[in-house]
């Protein structure tokens, strides 16, 4: 491993937050291209080790390897965080794909108010305010911590949103049910008049 790769490894170890390529370059006095090469070397050097190199929102950080999770939670008494509730997960998905997005907009898509889900997500550090809409409503976006906790290096890692659309069969079944329900309703209204 080159001397520069070693210094980069030490810097990522010491820094409490992910470090950008520019910050690494400024701290070491090395050119960006050399930093890139050092990062590639570090990534290769960490294969088969207890640590991994990870990109988060264009910055770099070290994380522990998955096989150490059980022992680490045991040693550090750090339990897994609670799973998202369905309401939180839906709200987070809408913010992730449509950001920046306001709470009334989220409520319109979900069909129910989004207040407590939004607050919980802000509290968990997964979303944050991102300015205001023309009507003065607070807009929300996802945070770097969101990327880190969901093991995404950037928002581009989110799957194409269309992959989540119901299949044509499901859509047809839904359409059928709706139309039938509509007809029944029309009949019962007609007969009761």
């Amino acid at each position, binding site marked *: 491993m080159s001397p520069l790769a070693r210094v980069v490894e030490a810097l990522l170890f010491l820094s409490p937050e992910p470090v950008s390529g520019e910050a690494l370059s400024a701290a070491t006095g090395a050119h960006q291209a050399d930093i890139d090469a050092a990062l590639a070397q570090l990534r290769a050097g960490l294969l088969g080790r207890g640590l991994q190199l990870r990109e988060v929102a264009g910055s770099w950080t070290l994380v522990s390897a998955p096989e150490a999770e059980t022992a680490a939670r045991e040693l550090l008494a750090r339990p897994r965080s609670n799973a998202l509730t369905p309401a939180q997960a839906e709200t987070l998905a809408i913010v992730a794909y449509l950001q920046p997005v306001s709470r009334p907009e989220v409520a319109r898509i979900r069909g129910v108010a989004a207040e407590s889900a939004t607050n919980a997500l802000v509290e968990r550090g997964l979303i944050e305010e991102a300015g205001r809409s023309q009507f003065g409503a607070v807009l929300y976006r996802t945070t770097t911590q969101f990327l880190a906790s969901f093991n995404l290096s950037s928002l581009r890692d989110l799957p194409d949103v269309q992959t*989540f659309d119901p299949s044509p069969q499901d859509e047809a079944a839904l359409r059928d049910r709706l139309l039938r329900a509509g007809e029944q309703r029309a009949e019962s209204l007609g007969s009761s*008049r």
Partner: protein
Amino acid sequence: MPSDMLRNLELDLDVFSGPFDLLLSLILREELDLLEVQLAEIVIAYLDHLERRERLNLEAATEFLVLIAALLELKSRLMLPGEEVEELDELEPAQAAEELLDRMLRYARYQNAGQWLIERQEAGQQFLLRESGPPAELSKTAEKPRATHDPQLLARAVGGLLKMPPAPDLRHLRNPRVSVADRLTILRDLLRRGRFDFERAVAGQDRMTVAVTLYALLELYKRGEADWEQEVPFAPITVAVGGNAAARAVAS
């Protein structure tokens, strides 16, 4: 105020856990959003409670019905904002179904995406970040105060808050046309002619009217003016003059 039994009904809902009367007062003070409360959970908790107590306290049961019906009415008004009902009502059934289908598909997309995020979060938890800061001897020099921000940022931020938002357009809003008083009058008219089927009181009416009429009927039941029966779930509901109707006739 609810009776002791209701006050002490312990609830454990998705968004709230505690006694029923606290839930009520939180909702009334708008500290808890009624739209997020699953009313069915409350009913189930109440039924469990009744089962444990064996004996049915009719007064408390009526009171519960009135309260839960009031919550249902409030919630249904919140869930069906006037404009959208209008919109859907004005559409042909086929168009309305298309519109509804569009909304459901759009929602299904994000529901599925949410499910994906839940699984992704599960997997992401395998990787842990170091949480300790750098050693003290290296961080002593951290964060020197230096001019890093443009003062105009403050002027822009506070100036943005001064901007008055455009006045909301209220033209599409109408007062709710269904009032409990009106429905009470209709029910009392029917009652004067004897027993009747609840369907008759709401024939051809929209959902809002049906809900408000049911609420009015609960009110009559509470005052003893009406009694009602339903043989099995979904069977016709028969309404008849209640035991207290004579008293009311004297009073009026």
